[in-house]
C-alpha cells in the first residue's frame, strides 16, 4: 500500500513529506527527478516510475507533484485516485491546494494525511467525516481558538464512518431546506481544417447542492434517461433502482457533491455549437493570422465567455493583431495567444486578424498550431438531457422531538440549472 508521500514544487524542492510506515529516505525522489529531466514539460512526466526498490506513482496538480512511494504491488489507480482525493480535500479545506496553502496549514495537512491513511490503507476520505474530525480553518475559529484554547480537533467519534451511509452525517438541521442540481455538459471535440468533426463526445455531470434536514431520500427522474447509458454514480445512488426503473434514488450527502457523471459516446451525433474559421499562413520572416468565430447549433441560446487560445510555434516572435471585439494577449515567452472574445453576436461575427513576426533567419514552421476554444451556453444541455421531476421524502422530526419520526414530504426550494461548455475543444488549422 502507500508507504510515503512527498510533495515537490516546481522548483524541485521537497517541501513536505509524510511516512505512514517506516521512513523512506528523500533520496528515493532522485529517480523521480531523473524522469522529470527527460520530460519536455511538467505534465509530461510518466506517472508510474519503477525504481529498484520502490514504485513511485505521482500526480501533477496545482503545480505540485504529489509523489507516492509504494513498496509492494498495488493497484496504481488506487494510488492515483487517492492522491487526487488528497488534493481535493486540501482544496476543500484551504480554498486551494497550492503550495502556499499547504505551507500555511502544515499541521492540519499533517493531521489530515494521518486521518486519511492508516498504514497505507485509506481510513477516512469522505469530506464530511474529515470535517467532523478536523475542523477546517477559518478566521473566526482561529480567533476563538486562541482566545478560548479550544482546538480544531473534534472529540467525537466520526459517526458517519460506521453507518451504512458513510457520506452523510447524522443530525443535520437546516431552517431553509434547499436542493439545487446543476446539469453541466462539456463537449470534447476535434475539428479538422475543413470544419468537419473528427471526434466529439460529451462528458456530463450533475453536481448538487443539497441542504436538507434529517435523512432525506430523493428521487430524480429524467425525461429521456436513455441518453445515460454510460454512467458512474456517487456511492449513494441505488444501482438496482437505476437498472430497473432508470430513476436516480439516493440519500444525498450533506452539501455539495457530484451525483453522477456520464458520457455520451461518439456513436451519437453531437451538436457542435460554435465554428472557428482559421486562416493562418507562414512565410519567410512572418505570416498572416485571421480567425473568425461564429455560432452553429445553439438552439437559439447565446454563446458566452468565448476564449480562444492558440499555442504558436516557437519561432514566432510577436503578433500584431486587431480584434473586432474583446481583447487579445500574446505571451512571447510561452508563445501562447489568448483572445478573450466574450459573447458572440450572430449579426456581427468576432474576428481577429493581423501579422505574425518570426525570428529572423529561422525557417517558417512546418505545421500550423491547433486552436483550443472555450465557451459557455447557459440553460442548455447539449445532449438534450432533461430532468423530469424531483421527489423528496425524509425523516423529519415534528415540532416535539419526543414524537416518533414520520415520513413526510419536504417542501424545500429546489431548482435545476443547465450549462453547456467546452471541454477539450480543439480546432486543427
Amino acid at each position: 500500500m502507500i508507504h510515503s508521500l512527498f510533495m515537490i514544487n516546481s522548483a524541485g524542492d521537497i517541501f513536505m513529506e509524510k511516512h505512514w510506515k517506516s521512513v523512506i529516505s528523500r533520496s528515493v525522489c532522485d529517480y523521480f527527478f531523473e524522469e522529470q529531466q527527460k520530460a519536455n514539460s511538467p505534465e509530461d512526466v510518466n506517472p508510474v516510475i519503477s525504481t529498484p526498490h520502490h514504485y513511485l506513482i505521482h500526480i501533477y496538480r496545482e503545480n505540485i507533484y504529489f509523489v507516492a512511494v509504494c513498496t509492494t504491488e498495488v493497484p496504481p489507480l488506487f494510488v492515483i485516485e487517492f492522491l487526487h482525493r488528497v488534493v481535493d480535500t486540501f482544496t476543500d479545506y484551504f480554498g486551494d491546494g497550492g503550495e502556499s496553502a499547504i505551507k500555511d496549514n502544515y499541521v492540519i495537512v499533517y493531521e489530515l494525511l494521518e486521518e486519511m491513511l492508516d498504514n497505507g490503507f485509506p481510513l477516512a476520505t469522505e469530506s464530511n467525516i474529515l470535517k467532523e474530525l478536523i475542523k477546517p480553518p477559518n478566521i473566526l475559529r482561529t480567533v476563538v481558538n486562541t482566545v478560548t484554547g479550544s482546538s480544531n480537533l473534534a472529540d467525537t467519534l466520526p459517526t458517519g464512518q460506521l453507518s451504512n451511509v458513510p457520506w452523510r452525517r447524522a443530525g443535520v438541521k437546516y431552517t431553509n431546506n434547499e436542493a439545487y442540481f446543476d446539469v453541466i455538459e462539456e463537449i470534447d471535440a476535434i475539428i479538422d481544417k475543413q470544419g468537419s468533426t473528427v471526434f466529439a463526445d460529451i462528458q456530463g455531470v450533475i453536481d448538487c447542492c443539497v441542504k436538507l434536514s434529517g435523512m432525506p431520500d430523493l428521487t430524480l427522474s429524467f425525461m429521456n434517461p436513455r441518453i445515460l447509458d454510460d454512467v458512474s454514480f456517487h456511492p449513494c445512488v441505488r444501482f438496482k433502482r437505476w437498472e430497473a426503473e432508470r430513476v436516480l434514488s439516493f440519500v444525498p450527502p450533506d452539501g455539495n457533491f457530484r451525483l453522477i457523471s456520464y458520457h455520451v459516446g461518439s456513436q451519437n451525433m453531437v451538436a457542435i455549437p460554435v465554428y472557428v474559421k482559421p486562416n493562418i499562413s507562414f512565410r519567410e520572416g512572418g505570416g498572416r493570422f485571421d480567425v473568425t468565430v461564429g455560432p452553429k447549433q445553439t438552439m437559439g441560446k447565446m454563446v458566452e465567455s468565448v476564449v480562444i487560445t492558440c499555442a504558436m510555434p516557437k519561432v514566432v516572435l510577436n503578433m500584431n493583431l486587431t480584434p473586432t471585439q474583446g481583447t487579445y494577449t500574446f505571451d512571447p515567452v510561452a508563445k501562447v495567444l489568448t483572445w478573450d472574445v466574450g459573447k458572440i453576436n450572430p449579426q456581427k461575427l468576432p474576428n481577429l486578424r493581423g501579422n505574425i513576426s518570426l525570428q529572423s533567419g529561422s525557417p517558417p514552421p512546418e505545421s500550423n498550431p491547433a486552436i483550443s476554444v472555450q465557451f459557455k451556453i447557459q440553460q442548455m444541455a447539449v445532449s438534450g438531457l432533461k430532468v423530469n421531476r424531483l421527489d423528496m421524502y425524509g425523516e423529519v422530526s415534528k415540532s416535539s422531538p419526543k414524537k416518533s419520526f414520520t415520513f413526510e414530504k419536504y417542501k424545500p426550494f429546489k431548482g435545476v440549472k443547465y450549462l453547456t461548455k467546452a471541454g477539450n475543444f480543439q480546432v486543427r488549422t
Partner: protein
Amino acid sequence: MTDSKYFTTTKKGEIFELKNELNSDKKEKKKEAVKKVIASMTVGKDVSALFPDVVNCMQTDNLELKKLVYLYLMNYAKSQPDMAIMAVNTFVKDCEDTNPLIRALAVRTMGCIRVDKITEYLCEPLRKCLKDEDPYVRKTAAVCVAKLHDINAQLVEDQGFLDQLRELLSDSNPMVVANAVAALSEISDTSPSPAAQMEMNQQTINKLLAALNECTEWGQIFILDALSNYVPKDDREAQSICERVTPRLAHSNAGVVLSAVKVLMKGMEYVGMESEFVTTLQKKLAPPLVTLLSSEPEVQYVALRNINLIVQKRPDILKHEMKVFFVKYNDPIYVKLEKLDIMIRLATQENIAQVLAELKEYATEVDVDFVRKSVRAIGRCAIKVEQAAERCVSTLLDLIQTKVNYVVQEAIVVIKDIFRKYPNKYESIISTLCENLESLDEPDARASMIWIVGEYAERIDNADELLESFLEGFHDESTQVQLQLLTAIVKLFLKKPTETQELVQQVLSLATQDSDNPDLRDRGYIYWRLLSTDPAAAKEVVLAEKPLISSETDRLEPTLLDELICYIASLASVYHKPPSAFVEGQALVVRKTQLPVRSASGEPGATGATESPVPQQAQPVQQQQSVIPSHDTAMGDLLGDLLSMDLNPPQQQMSMTPAPQQDMGGMDLLGGGLDSLLGGPSPVAGMPASQASMGGGLGDILGLGISSTTYVPPKQVWLPAPKAKGLEVSGTFSIRQNVRYMDLTLKNNAMAPMGDFAIQFNKNSFGLSPASALQVPSPLSPGQTADVTLPLGTNGPVQKMDPLMNLQVAMKNNIDVFYFSCLIPIHLLFTEDGQMGSASDRKVFLATWKDIPDSNEVQKEIANPNQLDPKGISDKLQQSFIFTIAQRNVDGRDMLYQSLKLTNGIWVLAELKIQPRSPTMTLSLKTRALDVIPQVQQAYELIIANM
C-alpha cells in the same frame, strides 16, 4: 493567523526554548509547543532530543494534544526505543478507554511504533480490540495486525492473530470485512508461510460479495482484488460472480472500475467461450473503459496500458471505439504514445482511412518523439492491413515530400519493412527515396536505405555510385551501417558482377583489414571466401529468399498475455511484465492467478468448444524442493553427467554425430550473418533449421541403428504450452538394446528462444532416474521442435507412488522450472533375464507357481484382436521380455506359461489360455506383489493389440 508561524523561529536555543515550553504548566503553552515540534518534524528537522518532554504531555484529556503527541511518537519511537517503552502504559490504558475513538486511536498508534520491544506489550490490547464491540475499533485493529506482521511476522502467527483476522471476514460490518481483506492480502503478499495465505472458498466469496455493495470505495478495490484471485469451481459460479460485480463498473472511482474489469475479464475465461453471457458482458465493458479516458491524464495512462492488454485479449470489446483514442494536442506525451499504440491495434480495413488521416495529422506535430512514433505507426498499419498498404505508402511519400529531416528518416525505416512484407510491389517509389539520400544522418535510416539499394540493386541504375558514396566515410559509420553496406555491396556484386568488382574488393578489404570490429571482419571473411570458392553458392546464400515479416511482431506472447490479464489494474499491467519480473521477491508467493488452460494452441478463439476449466493450483513449495533439492547442485550433477553421456551410446552413433555437427557449424555462421543482414525479427532464424534437422537426424539414426523391438506407445503431451510459458513437452518411453529411454519432443511455442534445458525426476516406485543429462539443441528458437532421447537408469531413489506408475518430472530451462507427471508403461521395466529357469528346466517355474498362494492369482479376459496363434503371441511377447517357459494344448486350447521380471526383482508368472479363432483369451497372473497386476494386464493387452 496560519501555521507558518511555527516555522519562523530559527534562533539559537530553539530546542531549549521548546523544552521549557513543553514543561510549562499552562496547557495552552504546552500545546503550542507540541505544535511547533511537529512542524519542525514535518520539514525534516531533528527534534528527537525532546522525546521525554513530549511523552510527558501524553497523559492528557485533551484529544488534540494526545493526537499530536501520538504523531510525534510514531516518528521518533524507532530512534529512542528505550524511551518509547515509557509510553506503553498510556497506550494500554487508552485501549480500555470508554470512548471508542480513543481506543481506536491508541491501537492505531501502537501499531505504528515500529519497536520490537513494544510489540510484545501490544498483543493483549490488540486481541481485545479485534473483538471490540465497536466496529470502528475492530476495523482499525484489523489493519494493526498487518502492521504488526510487518514488524514481526512470527509473533503474529504464533499469537493466532491471523485466525482472528480470518474470522473478521464474516464480520457484520462491511468496513471491517474490507479492512480484514486488505490486511490479509497484504500479509499474504509479503509472507511465504502458507499459514498467511488467504483461503478462498465459496462461503468467504459470498461474504465478500455481500460486503462489496456496502463498503467504501477503497474497500471495494481490496475486495475486488481478492475476488480476482479466486478460481470459481464451475461456469455457473463464475457467471454469478460476474453478475454481482458488474454494477461496480458504474462507480465513479476509477480504481474500483478497473479492479471490477479485472474480475470480469478473468471470470469470462471460466464461462464458456461462445456463451451469450460473455457477449453481453463484453458489451458492458466498453463504456466504463471509454469513460476512464476522460479522467485525469494519470488515470488515462494506467487505463490505456490496461486497455492495451484487453484489446489484445478480446479485440471485440473496443472495436467500435476507435475515435476515443484519437490524440489531442495537449495530452501529455505518455498518453499520446499509448493512444497511438492502441489505435494501431484497433486498425482494421473498415476504419483504416480514418486512422491514416489522423496519423498523418500527428506527423506534423511539434513533439519529435511523437511524430516519429506516428510515422512508424503508419508503417505498422501498412503491414497489418494489407488492403491499406498502398494508401499507407502514398501517405508516407507525402510525408517524405515535407522534407522534415526526422520524418523522412523515420519514413525510410518503415518503408524498408513494407518492402519486406510486400516484395515486388512498391519498388516504383525507390527513386523518390534515393532523392533524400543526403539528408539521412541517423544510423537506422542510413542502414535501411542501404539495405533498399542493395536489395533492389538491379533496378537502380546508379546503385554502384550510391553505395560508393557511402563507402567514402566507411570508418565513421556505425557498425550497423558498416555491416549493411558490406552486405549491400556483395549483393550488388552478385547482381552486376561486371561493373562492381573493384567496389566489392574495396569494401572487403575495408571490412577485413582496416576494421577492428570482429563482427564486421568475420562477415567480411565469410563473404570473401564464399565469393572466392563458390560464387554460385554465394549467390544462393546472400540472395536467398527472406522470410516474410509477421504483421503483429509487437504482440505479447499469448501465455504472457494470459498471465497479465490476471494482473489487470496492478502495476504488472502498467509495466506489461509479470510481477515476478519486477516485484522484489524476498518471498514472492506464487499467487493462484492463472487463466484456465485451454487447448495447447493457447489461441483464444481457436477453441470453440467449452472446456471445463481446470482449477490450477500452484505447485506447493515443498514439493518443488523434493523434486529438485537445489538448483545449483542439480545443475552440477547434470553437468557431470554430461561428460559420461558420450560413453553410453553405441559406437556407431559416435562416428555419425561429428559430421552433422560440422555441417551445422558452417550453416550457423552463414545463417547468423544472413540474418542480421536482413534485420529480421529473430536473430537465429538461420540456425535452428539446421539444428533441428540434426536433432531429428540423430533420432533417426538411433531409431534405425537398433531395430525397435519393444512396443513403444505413441507420444502424449505431458506438459501443455500454456502451463510452461510456451514450452510444450510430449513424450513416450522405449527400450532399445536393453537401454531404457525417455523419448521427448520439445516444442517452443513462445516468442523467445529457450536454452539451458535440464531434467530431474522425483522419487518413484521403480527408481527410474535420468542416466545422463538432457541434450537439447540450444537455443530452441520460437516455433522449433526438437526430439530428444534420454537414457534412463533404474537405480534412483525409490518411493512408492500413487498411482503406482506415476513419474513426476521437473524440467528446467532458461525461463523457469516446470513440473509435470506421466505414467511409466510397466513393460519398460521388464528385464531381459525374466526367463524363470530355462526352456528345458521348468521345475523352477512350477515350484514357484505352486508356492504363490492361489489368492494371489488374478484372471482377466484380454482381447486378441488379430487372432494371433500361440507361436506369434509368444514371439511378440518375448520381444518385450515376457518369456514363454512352456506350451501345452488342453482340450483344443493352447496354454502358454510365461514369466517376467521387473527391474526391482519382482517376478510375475502368467498362464495364457488361447482359444483358436476367438477374439479373446484368458490371462491368469500370479505374483507376490499384487500391486503390479493391473499394469501387467494392461501391458499384455497393449503389446498384443499393437503387434
